């Protein structure tokens, strides 16, 4: 049971990777990349978690109380920002591809033009 959170992270990573590999639509593929990234959230949070400790917000608990690790939570915030930017950029690439080639299926993007 103690290792369940790591297993969830690994499962999210693999299922997202499967989605990217087997995808037949670029928008679907971008969302699968998002699923892969969410595995890193689960991993970071499970590393920072301590059994029985409260959140690191000291406005309602007295300062100095042992709490869960705030550093990995801050890293996860960075992670979320990076995911948003990656998804936004990839989606705009997908829009451009759809404009140029009229399709979002990567298997049909075989035409090369220079």
């Amino acid at each position, binding site marked *: 049971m103690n*290792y369940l959170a790591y297993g969830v992270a690994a499962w999210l990573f693999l299922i997202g990777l499967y989605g990217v590999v087997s995808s037949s639509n670029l928008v679907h593929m971008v969302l699968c990349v998002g699923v892969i990234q969410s595995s890193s959230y689960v991993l970071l949070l499970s590393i920072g978690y301590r059994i029985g400790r409260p959140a690191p917000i000291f406005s309602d608990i007295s300062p100095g109380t042992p709490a869960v690790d705030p550093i990995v939570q801050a890293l996860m915030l960075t992670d979320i920002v990076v995911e948003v930017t990656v998804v*936004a950029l990839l989606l705009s690439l997908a*829009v451009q591809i759809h404009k140029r080639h*009229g399709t979002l299926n990567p298997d049909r993007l075989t035409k090369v033009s220079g």
Partner: protein
Amino acid sequence: MLAYGAMPPVGFVQSKYGDMVNSLTVSERHITDAVTAVNFDVRGFDTLGEEFILFTSVLGVVVLMRRQKDEPAGDHEDQLPGRTIPKPSDAARVMSFALVAPTVLFGLYIVTHGQVSPGGGFQGGVILASAPLLLYLCARYSDLKRVLPDKLVDISEAIGAAGYIVIGGACVALGGVFLQNLLPLGKSGTVTGGGMVAFIDLGVGLEVSGGLCTALLIYLEELLEDKEQ
């Protein structure tokens, strides 16, 4: 698999830094939210980089989505002809109109209270940027443009991005280190707690909401131009 086996069980990972930050944020930094303390005070320079990741990607979206001369216009082969988008229902319009003002207020609250409770510039900025989406749901695109002109969005983004550097540079000019907290640290548990963090938060909030609104407006424009054709 080897790494997986060597990991300590969930809930028992030891990290000295985390405990150190937890025990010092209130006494030394006067910030009651340890995550904000880490992001905007202890490693404020990294957050500057993070903010510029966002800035650059919005720039990338703008560059990628601009209208090009040789762009083929007309029907796409995988588009259903004669398909119309249904109008939003009255209930959705009333609800989203009612939610616009509370959303803006809530976003501002989250931006400014990152030192006290969970929140801060990134989270509040996203909430602020969702207000224009609600406006788009309850009105036409032209109304949205009237409330939220491009200039306002651009200025907010620019002030947000520049503000962070200006704050950091001001510290150097005053004889400190880049982003060193030179303001009085204030009373912990209030908005003034943490000194400069409130201003950095505000800058990041402006940048995030401006950046997301820019991306949103660009995507909407793209959609509507396609519909007109």
